């Protein structure tokens, strides 16, 4: 199974890092799409399908919490697993995002295998290492 992943982060450096980590993770990625905030992510999703979304929390225009909330309310987009990637490790923040509808939470810094595990858990599958 080849995955299409959407990375939502306002930092080009972090988007680039996540792409590299996905490459190293052993997951079979067919395409990585990028958005710099929640609003841009929603606009992008109107025209394409992705298998999973990795989103930061702290972003301009529309932050990660609002993005997770909007996706959970949408008839179709709620089917896409959303994983939060954040520096915030506090239990209250994690619980709030998971309650809103996020399927996983990865704290920065993270290793490739951690990201792989969280993505696989959210999809309920195990992908072969290339």
């Amino acid at each position: 199974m080849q995955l299409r992943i959407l990375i939502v982060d306002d930092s080009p450096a972090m988007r680039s890092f996540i792409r590299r980590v996905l490459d190293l993770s052993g997951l079979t990625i067919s395409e990585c799409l990028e958005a710099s905030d929640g609003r841009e992510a929603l606009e992008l999703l109107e025209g394409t399908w992705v298998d999973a979304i990795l989103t930061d929390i702290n972003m301009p225009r529309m932050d990660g919490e609002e993005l997770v909330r909007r996706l959970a309310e949408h008839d179709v987009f709620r089917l896409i697993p959303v994983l939060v990637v954040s520096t915030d490790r506090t239990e209250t923040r994690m619980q709030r995002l998971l309650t809103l509808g996020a399927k996983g939470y990865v704290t920065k810094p993270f290793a490739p295998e951690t990201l792989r595990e969280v993505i696989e858990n959210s999809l309920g599958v195990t992908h072969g290492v290339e």
Partner: protein
Amino acid sequence: MESNEVQAALASAVEEVVETMCFASVIASSEAASDDDVSKSGVSAELRFEGDPSGGFRLDVESAAARVLGAAFLGREEHEVTDAQQGEVVCELANMICGSVLSRLERATTFHITHPCLVPKGATTAYVGTEVRRCFDLGEGVMTTCFRIQQGT
């Protein structure tokens, strides 16, 4: 909050972030950094956090070290990394180190961390409150961290 506690959290956070995100190793100095340790020719970023406690965090990275970290973070050759990209990486590192320090000090509290922003070269930031500094040797240069806790929080 004890200074020693913050010093230990800074050391653990920097080691974790640099090793995981840049695949590099750091050596923490045994003593706290002073004003003289802060490079005037490197890349600096700072941010604020609000919660219990509130305060700020500043990261200064010497030029050569910033170039190496930028290349490692982005998975590129050093000559391919622009000054702007070095700045983005130092901002991201500041964000992650600060978040990691806060979670080590107060795991049960939610913090709001502002976007890190670059500090003009050589600029210093006046601050009222407690400052805890620590510097780290990256081989190619020094990284200096400054964790600030607002008075009364």
